[in-house]
């Protein structure tokens, strides 16, 4: 198993670790088979239901998981930070993996659940502001990984 230098950097110095007091959304995604679990807290500004206007103003994560999982969560948090919700909803696992200069093949479908966990937080935000209708359209975490 070879990790890229980027993966090792994010594993060693994970960005945005922690929780947020009074978050606007909380998302969790985990793969019980792999034993990876991620929780994201987000703050959204402005508190809009316009996905092109609302941005992730603050993001924090916690991860139980292997080196790849920690690096994925850290990288995904960095990528989401400051982006509009619609931009984050369009982010893919591959975007994160590519930004990390690749992940070992076996980690791709397993530890690479960072984007999904953030999208879960967005879903949670949308529900909290009463836009259940929008929330259901966001993919979020795959069924087997809740």
């Amino acid at each position, binding site marked *: 198993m070879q990790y890229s230098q980027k993966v090792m950097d994010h594993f060693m110095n994970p960005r945005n670790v922690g929780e947020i007091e009074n978050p606007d959304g909380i998302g969790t995604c985990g793969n019980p088979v792999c034993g990876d679990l*991620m929780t994201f807290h987000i703050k959204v500004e402005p508190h809009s239901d316009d996905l092109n206007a609302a941005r992730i103003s603050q993001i924090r994560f916690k991860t139980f998981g292997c080196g790849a999982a920690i690096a994925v969560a850290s990288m995904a948090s960095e990528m989401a930070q400051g982006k509009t919700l619609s931009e984050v909803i369009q982010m893919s696992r591959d975007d994160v993996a590519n930004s990390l200069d690749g992940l070992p093949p076996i980690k791709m479908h397993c530890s690479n659940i960072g984007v999904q966990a953030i999208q879960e937080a967005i879903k949670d935000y949308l529900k909290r502001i009463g836009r259940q209708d929008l929330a259901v359209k966001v993919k979020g975490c795959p069924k087997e990984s809740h």
Partner: protein
Amino acid sequence: MAREEKCIYLDNNATTPTDPRVLDAMLPYFHTMPGNPSSIHAAGRKARQAVDSARGRVSALLGCRSDEIYFTSGGTESDNIAIKGTCFAQEERKKIITSSIEHHAVLTVCEYMQKFGYELVKVPVDRHGIVDLDFLNRAVDDHTLLVSIMHANNETGTIEPIQKIIEITRRHGAIFHTDAVQTVGKIPIDTNALMVDMLSLSGHKFYGPKGIGALYVRRGIRFDPLAHGGHHERSKRAGTENVPGIIGLGEACAIALNEMTAEELRLKALRDRLWQSIWEKIPKVSLNGHPTERLSGTLNFSVEYVEGESMLLKLDLEGICASSGSACTSGSLEASHVLVAMGIPHALAHGSLRFSLGRFNTEKDTDAVINVLPGIVEKLREISPLYQR
């Protein structure tokens, strides 16, 4: 990285460094004495003599006759010969019994034999990893060709009660094979007293070279070769003999025979001291494996709330080489089948660490672990969503 250069190697169950004495014994057989043991000239005869004498040293360690030893390329090949060879050499009995905690070199082979019409039963284990003898007793019957149960487990070090297993097996005339890859050279084995039928060993697990192993086969037990070809190894394992490897294996056996007893005590003290310190310094850790019936160099435990690979990576960056039952460290997507079979919850199996101590480890090495591990665990727990202080 400079740190990597002098890594503290605590992964001796995965593979051991070759003992310098073993390497010294091998060296002349590369260039200076190149003979093929099948050749009748001086170079060939010398190689033959060296191979014969190494065979004698292996058999001395196992308490068997030297013509009961077949050299192979390692533990996996030995396991494959034992299982496939026994199956293909007969047509009467069609049932194989193994345990749920075997190494893949046994498990996967047994599963493959289902393709050839063999029924497979896997005996479960208790929470310490000891096979369920009652279950085994009910499973073995007159259709059972082979029972293959490991001598000690590579992940936990738990030593199986093979004496009792053999008694059960023999009652129904089944053949008993044991994967003793983790025990040969570490604890005494007397094939004759045990009445074991077949036994696998691997050189690189006890300070011999990689790429060499052996299969003990009691006289009279029939098996088909895995590799056909020339008349090597009494026509049971074809291929030009790996002469330097065989010499190395012989030397490793001779050293083990001499030093095993003292070494076992030394390792046990080293390991128990390590566990004691870990247990004192890190809350929420639990031992995996049998508390006493266990290889003296093996320490496997689970650390709650953190995952094994991330601990390994941080240990690695501190220059410490260890291993884990985390799924992320295996080629598969699942956590250690051994820990899971012992009933250890998935999260704890994912959070397991194994330190396996060996001949070249000293207190300095275990002290290094004690110095860095608590901090590593603390850091990882801080970012773990499962952990509540």
